[in-house]
């Protein structure tokens, strides 16, 4: 996978998260995953097509999802993942991926994205690629978020 395809996704997080009320985005581990990833509780998947093909997933615990949704909703308490919180989290996946897609398009790689899918559960695994994917671990204001990218041009 081309590193030039990865950076726009990281840039998107750095660009979008502060607009949603988050202060700090830290990148920690970067690993290559094969086959399936293990769902932490809440996973958002967005598909890409045209200039780049593939899927991007955002993987987090239920608690992390609640905390992110809470910040997105101006600090309103989100004790559980209700309809509004689910909507906020899926919109986050949409915004981040659309932002990355726009950056890719600016680099001459016209990309379209699908609607986000949200998967919630206590026991599931997700396959976003038939081969490999990149797993970037991020910490956003002490909340852990996994960014998983499997795209090819």
């Amino acid at each position, binding site marked *: 996978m081309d590193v030039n395809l990865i950076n726009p996704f990281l840039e998107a997080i750095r660009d979008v998260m502060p607009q949603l009320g988050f202060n700090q985005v830290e990148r920690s581990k970067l690993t290559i995953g094969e086959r399936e990833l293990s769902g932490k509780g809440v996973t958002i998947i967005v*598909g890409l097509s045209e200039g780049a093909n593939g899927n991007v997933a955002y993987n987090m615990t239920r608690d992390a999802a609640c905390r992110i949704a809470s910040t997105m909703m101006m600090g309103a308490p989100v004790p559980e993942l209700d309809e509004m919180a689910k909507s906020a989290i899926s919109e986050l996946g949409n915004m981040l991926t659309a932002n990355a897609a726009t950056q890719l398009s600016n680099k001459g790689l016209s990309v379209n*994205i699908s609607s986000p*899918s949200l998967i919630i*559960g206590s026991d599931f695994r997700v*396959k976003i*690629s038939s081969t490999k994917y990149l797993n970037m671990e991020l910490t956003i204001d002490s909340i852990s978020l996994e960014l998983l990218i499997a795209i090819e041009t």
Partner: protein
Amino acid sequence: MDTIRVLLVDDSPFMLEMLKAALNIPGIEVCGTANNGQSAIDIYPILKPNLVTMDITMPDMDGLICSENILGIDDQARIIIISSMLDEALQKRGQAIGVKAFIQKPVNPDDLLFAIRSLFADQSESLSLEYYARNLSFALQKNLMLMANLNSSIDMAPTKKFRLDSSGIAIIIGITGSKKGKATLDLSPVTAKAIATKIFGHEQLSEDAVINAITEYFNISCGHCNSNINNSFQDIELRLTPPSVAIGDDMNLPKLVELEYEIIITTDSGTMKVNLELSGDGENGC
């Protein structure tokens, strides 16, 4: 939609009977038959059918000449060429005259009905979620027959449920292009195994092989659906994103938009569900 009245033109009594049988469904009425080109031209202004099926090789004239004559009488005439010979040159000639659809003999009734639906859809309907769902249902059913030799029945309706409780395997394919959306096929591992067994013709299948087979089935069906829609609407171009698959004993997929369609596919090998979401303009997804 009102009943579609069809005039069948073919010199073979056998073909006329086959076509009558294929079109013996609610919403379609065979209003007349003609066994040569001149009778078709004579009878067209009297019957004023909504649709003509046209053979090519007839004793008195070529089906394309006949079509040209009919289009001379009524430039809005909808004509489907049904011919044993169907090459690109013939299609080009037909399109130049104004023929809208072509089907090769022997006629698969599903293909014929689909061509008819598409012909009438592009005038009376815009690409709605319901239209997409109908096309996808058709492709799912057809490919289940082609790939697994499985008969199925389809139930399709807007879903009121606020989430899809997964039966164990959820295959997600994104829709991009002129519209933005996604389709999710959900089924149990037992159903997946049973259908994959039908596809492969044997039971010695790993979980991967099962999931790959079902994923491919879904991908092909969505691909066919998109191609058909792209062909039916001049201003629509839909694309698919690569499938992703979620597998688990406890997972659900919340409904994120107001309106989703649910397609339930029932077979002897089990039941599958497809949830479909499609929204307005997909341009760049922003």
